[in-house]
């Protein structure tokens, strides 16, 4: 099987008609039904063993998609399969092979049960062999220190709760893991480790990871491919490298020169000279100059640097601008909005 997740023309809308309008309609009043389209023909494939990022602004349809794929929500039409199982007709089979870290990860935990007891329940519920051993394994995997295993859930810190939710998702050793905003509440040290865990696919190269998050840096560092969804439609599906090629030259071939604020008055001498140096575009922001030279030439850029110094600007740093994933996605989404 090549694909872990196959989604075809998935559609979902919600009835948002107010209760009083529904009652009025029962008595014959003519009111317009208010339906909100959450998914409008979503189609994509996730390869087996892939780390797949699912990005989009709030209300784009990310959570609706995740809910459908995890069998919590039924689509209006279209098909979705996880490891070949239909999420509606074979939901029980799907639930056996997935692990879920939902956005609202505190649900389903007993607040007066310890971290260990909470997971032990799920180990029983999933009919795992050697449940206690498995619980210990995943608690160690997510690096929840042993001293916290016997603490009530409600006494764990936000980060520990998130680790426990992650442990719950990994407990049944799922073939497909759905992670919705997994880095929320995690400290920076664990986020780095967690990034490595995802890159290693939790020690199983065949594990597929479906990652929905707003943490774009995290996506850039972990995902093989990324789907961008907006207004219930997939805008694009590309690898991070391919995404970078979509960005207009004004972003990816520009240079940034940062100078000390004390020398800002020297800009008056420097800016007029830019026109003589084949600079096609520039922008000054506080103590930073961003500029684009013809053909992205490094030689011309260096000439600009020399000129800046000769004009008396105190240069702190000079570099080619890194393509920023957040900027790329913002531009893709903006382009899509403009097209609509």
């Amino acid at each position: 099987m090549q694909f872990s997740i196959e989604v075809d023309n998935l559609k979902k809308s919600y009835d948002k008609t107010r209760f009083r309008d529904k009652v009025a309609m029962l008595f014959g009043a003519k009111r317009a039904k208010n339906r909100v389209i959450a998914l409008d023909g979503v189609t994509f494939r996730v390869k087996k063993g892939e780390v797949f990022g699912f990005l989009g602004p709030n209300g784009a349809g990310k959570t609706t998609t995740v809910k459908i794929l995890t069998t919590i929500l039924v689509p209006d039409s279209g098909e979705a399969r996880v490891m070949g199982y239909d999420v509606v007709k074979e939901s029980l089979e799907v639930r056996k092979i997935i692990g879920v870290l939902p956005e609202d990860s505190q649900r389903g935990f007993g607040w007066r049960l310890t971290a260990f007891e909470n997971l032990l329940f799920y180990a029983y519920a999933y009919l795992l062999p050697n449940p206690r051993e498995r619980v210990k394994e995943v608690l160690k995997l997510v690096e929840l220190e042993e001293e916290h295993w016997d603490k009530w859930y409600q006494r764990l810190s936000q980060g520990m709760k998130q680790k426990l939710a992650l442990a719950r998702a990994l407990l049944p050793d799922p073939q497909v893991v759905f992670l919705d905003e997994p880095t929320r509440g995690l400290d920076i040290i664990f986020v780095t480790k967690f990034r490595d865990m995802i890159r290693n696919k939790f020690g199983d190269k065949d594990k597929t990871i479906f990652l929905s998050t707003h943490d774009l840096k995290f996506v850039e560092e972990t995902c093989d491919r990324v789907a961008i969804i907006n207004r219930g439609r997939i805008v694009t599906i590309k690898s991070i490298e391919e995404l970078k090629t979509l960005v207009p030259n004004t972003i990816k071939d520009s240079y940034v020169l940062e100078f000390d604020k004390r020398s800002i008055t020297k800009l008056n001498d420097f800016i007029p000279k830019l026109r003589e140096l084949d600079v096609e575009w520039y922008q000054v922001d506080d103590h930073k100059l961003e500029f684009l030279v013809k053909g992205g030439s490094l030689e011309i850029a260096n000439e600009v640097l020399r000129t800046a110094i000769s004009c008396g600007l105190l240069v702190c740093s000079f570099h080619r601008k890194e393509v920023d994933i957040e900027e790329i996605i913002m531009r893709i989404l903006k382009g899509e909005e403009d097209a609509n």
Partner: protein
Amino acid sequence: MQIKRLLGFLYIDFKEWLAYKYELFFWFLNTIIGAFTYAFLGTYVTLYKKELIVKYGSFLSFLIVGMAYNYIIYASLMAPRMAINPWNLMWRLLIPARLYEIIIGSVLFRYLIGILQFLTYFVVAIIFGAQFNINSVSAFVAIALGVAVMWGLGMISAGVQVITKRWDPVTWFFTMLGGLLSGVWFPYQLLPKPLQYVSLILPQTYILEMLRGAMLRAEPLTSMFDQLIPLAISATITVTIGYFVYMKSIEYAKEHGTVGEY
């Protein structure tokens, strides 16, 4: 049905129950005080109000059967709604188990606690001289039918709550009327005649009559057709409707995206 999975449910409910130490202490205290209160009350009424309870042997025995109803059978009405609440529902539904396993697992512990409470009352009642004349088969059938009827109603109630999130007219209706009119605390025949007609349409009335016949007069099933048949019919109807309503409510919540809402 996977026993290991049910043990998992029992485990968390038991652990959570133990976690509330003060509540646990007062639960034991309430059970003991309650048992002695009813034992005392029953003995007192037996002494001074003999004419009320001739049919039932003693008022204490009468009350204890009411307790059996309250703790085991009435619990069936409340358990599905309390156990499958919207806070847990999403995670319960993510477990790779069939819906009936999830429902049974979620309510099992409440039954065990109900039986434990009833046994406490039962033992204290015997200490106070209550006499029982039990036909085990009839008692088992009465309890099984009672649990089934109430379970069905409880499922309807839980189903309604999955949609409305709060409002639960089913439990309200049967708790209000059942407590007053079905004969939990006193024989329903003591009610004014018009109210007795209402009693006769409540399944609880038949459950209690059958239970008392089985536990106090050792009546065989063959002599309890007046209760057995209506209860068997009610059980079939309520369990079927209850399961259907609950399944449909889950479908509704899955279609409307309200599984996790509460």
